[in-house]
């Protein structure tokens, strides 16, 4: 079953810093909920494993992530797919775009993902909610991470500025983070 998620988030860092973080496996790994490993295979390919729980379905997903349409520091398309064994699979992609705003960088994301197997059978009603929750968490952590890299002294505030907007981002526009997270999840599946 297919799922889409769109959103944007304001990050307290310059486009270059955000871009770098978006391409830094260590940063991504620390921000993706449940991510156990994320390794660069080559410039544009990452191998990932993540533990994800959707409702009654809990599984370890293994998969590959490809970075496409690279346009540093303005954005990229990220695609991937992951197999979660008996839990099913996930695949999908996201278009991520960065633009300058007075407080730093606006990141917009547009995710399209598909899940299959047990995730679709049992988790269908839950997946949107879980994806959004994971997106929120991802972007909160990611905002903190880029804030740190930017040298912003108070990650807590940075985090707040990313996490707090969550209500403002609300359901449709929960931010690229969510999408990222969501597609990451999907990928790992």
């Amino acid at each position, binding site marked *: *079953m297919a799922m889409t998620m769109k959103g944007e988030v304001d990050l307290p860092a310059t486009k270059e810093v955000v871009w770098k973080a978006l391409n830094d496996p260590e940063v991504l790994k620390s921000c993706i909920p449940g991510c156990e490993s994320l390794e660069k295979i080559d410039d544009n390919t990452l191998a990932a494993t993540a533990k994800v729980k959707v409702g009654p379905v809990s599984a370890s997903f293994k998969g590959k992530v490809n970075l496409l349409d690279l346009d540093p520091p303005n954005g990229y398309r990220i695609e991937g797919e992951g197999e979660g*064994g*008996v839990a*099913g699979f996930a695949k999908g992609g996201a278009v991520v775009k960065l633009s300058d705003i007075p407080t730093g960088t606006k990141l917009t994301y547009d995710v399209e993902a598909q899940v*299959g*197997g*047990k995730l*679709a*059978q049992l988790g*269908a009603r839950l997946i949107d909610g879980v994806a959004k929750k994971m997106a929120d968490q991802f972007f909160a952590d990611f905002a903190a991470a880029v804030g740190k890299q930017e040298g912003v002294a108070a990650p807590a505030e940075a985090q707040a500025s990313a996490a707090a907007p969550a209500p403002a981002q609300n359901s449709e526009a929960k931010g690229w983070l969510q999408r990222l997270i969501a597609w990451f999840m999907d990928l790992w599946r």
Partner: protein
Amino acid sequence: MTATGIGAPVRRKEDFRFITGAGRYVDDINRPGQAYAYFLRSPHAHATINKIDTTEAMKSPGVVAIFTGADIEADKVGGLICGWAIFNKDGSPMRAGAHPALAIGKVRYVGDHVAVVIADTLAQARDAAEKIDVDYGVLSAAADVTTARKAGAPTIHDVAPDNQVYDWHLGDKAATDAAFAAAKHVTKLDIVNNRLVPNPMEPRAAVGEYDIGSDSLTLYTTSQNPHVARLVLSAFIGLAPENKFRVIAPDVGGGFGSKIFIYAEETVCVWAARKVRRAVKWTSDRTEAFLSDAHGRDHVTHAELATDANGKITAVRVSTKANMGAYLSTFASSVPTYLYAPLLSGQYNIPAIYAEVEAVYTNTAPVDAYRGAGRPEATYVIERLVEVAARELNVDPAEFRRRNFVTAFPHQTPVIMAYDAGDYDASLTKAQQMHDVAGFAARKAASASKGKLRGLGYSAYIEACGIAPSAAVGSLGAGVGLWESAEVRVNPIGTVEILTGSHSHGQGHETTFAQLVSGRLGIPIENVSIVHGDTDKVQMGMGTYGSRSGAVGMSAIVKALDKIEAKAKKVAAHVLEAAEGDIEFKNGKFTVKGTDKEADFGSIALQAYIAHKFNGQELEPGLKESAFWDPTNFTFPAGVHICELEIDPATGVVTIDRWTAVDDFGNVINPMIVEGQVHGGIAQGVGQALFEGAVYDSDGQLITASFMDYTMPRAQDLPSYNVGMTITACPSNPLGIKGCGEAGAIASPPAVINAITNALGHENITMPATPEKVWKAAQASAQKMAAE
């Protein structure tokens, strides 16, 4: 009628053990040293299997073995079969793709069997399955018949490159087309018969066991027909010869058709038991059942009905696309063909009928017989057509039906069936009276005053059941005969065991069959035991489906009882020292005509075994007889159901307010059990009409795979039914029985939809008529009314 004989509302003997938890189902059976099977299933609807790596999984604790399709193939074990050959319009055979028990090279639906893990515990088997690494090459999927038949659709089986299983037809096309050309009025309908998941209370289960000493297999399985299972597993799949293969179907908690079929899981369990030299057990969980039990229905149909200037039906023309799923299940091919089109004449005198059916492979679970099997689909077509035609012609729908009823019997339809007996007008008239149809207008006005829409819908169904005779089904392509067997074993003190090839999985055979014997032999019902479901006890049988156990199974018992009576009379003649011709048997007593000499059944049974009173060379000792019974025709239960309901246009919620069912099942053995079958059948039909629907998304993912997303009817959704009967005895079996198991599920969906469309004032609604759909339709009705 005696207190426990035919016609008595005897309480079900089996219920005590069921309601006290003393039933013995397959999952209750545990064998020494038993291991557990877990099936790794495909998460993809369509994919090549490039590689299966079990290295890590094999290291997992408790793992006994992991098998894939290659292992079964290497053992020269055959694939699953479809036992009914259908031929295309041009005479060529249907295109049946191979159906390996474990996938070989490719998976074709979500839930397809990729590998089996056998471990000491189920948890260990599951954990190991997590570690199996399958490299899939995902292919595009076709999840519905339209997509599957489009140019460029993915090919599911190489034998059917365009996914067409067969292109079959029945009836006289030229005569039908001519009748349409001459018609005064033509009614046209596009109909979807929604896909259903059977959902018996007990999910499927299997325990396979191998005995080294005798080199024999035993399979405990949730089967409606253990002998057919043994036949298929033995003769076609080749697991072991029949004399080395015992199949036991103990208490089975419902089947509705889904447990007729021979599935991958039991095949693998019993095969693997020999491989690992341990008993192997598998019990389906509910989501596995949603994924892998054969589904039901799933037809897309265009139907037309022609009438003349007098409002008489002159022809019916039907074109149906039937979704067969990814593989042809055991009897799948027969369902949209010979169990469907021959019923399109309904209760009506229709001179010309032409039906064409295209069966299509899709990347979904296999579809096969489900309560009614083809006949609900046919009834839905004809009863919607008739209702809509009446409305278009401004004729009362009951009157329109009456005008077209078959009234003389036997009646040969243009589509195979020869109706042998019935009185359709009697059922309709009785139903109208019981229902108080006359009061409907007032009730509708009362509803309207509360802002509710009230509707009334009829369904005058007919079905063909008691599936048989063998020669007839054989001529239509069946791979088996459809007789039934019975053995009557009279014990020395006069208690009786009846061994039957029928199988009870909720029908109450232990009661109804015992009633027949109790009444016939004049012995207490407690003295009669029914033995079924074990190939080592019952020699051969065809099982229970198609409402055949009464008409066919009990008739076989009657034939065996005839032989018992004849033999017992011979014994009685010696005991009572009279001529055999003077012995009479009545109410459990043997008497000598014109004398007061008598002996009861028990004493004659004892004498048959003691054998002191006769010469063993002239008369064999003992009292045991068997019979095979093959009927002369199908049976044709028919009746009228009336559904009356109220729609809340603000919410779309449908409330069924009253339901009247008047059925003609021929002679009735136990009216309480018959009524129970009617109740259950209606509930299932209402489920189809209002709630149930198996939904695959366009990628072939089943998104209704639990009771969270697949709605079953609940008690609160159903009214208290008015159930009545009319009786015309069936002439094609000695008991005059027609069968009642499927009628409710066959009759009810069109009654509901006819009532909803009657309330809405337009025909634009599909099953399941969920509140969302009904609300939208009600808005359309309001707009239409405003515009008018």
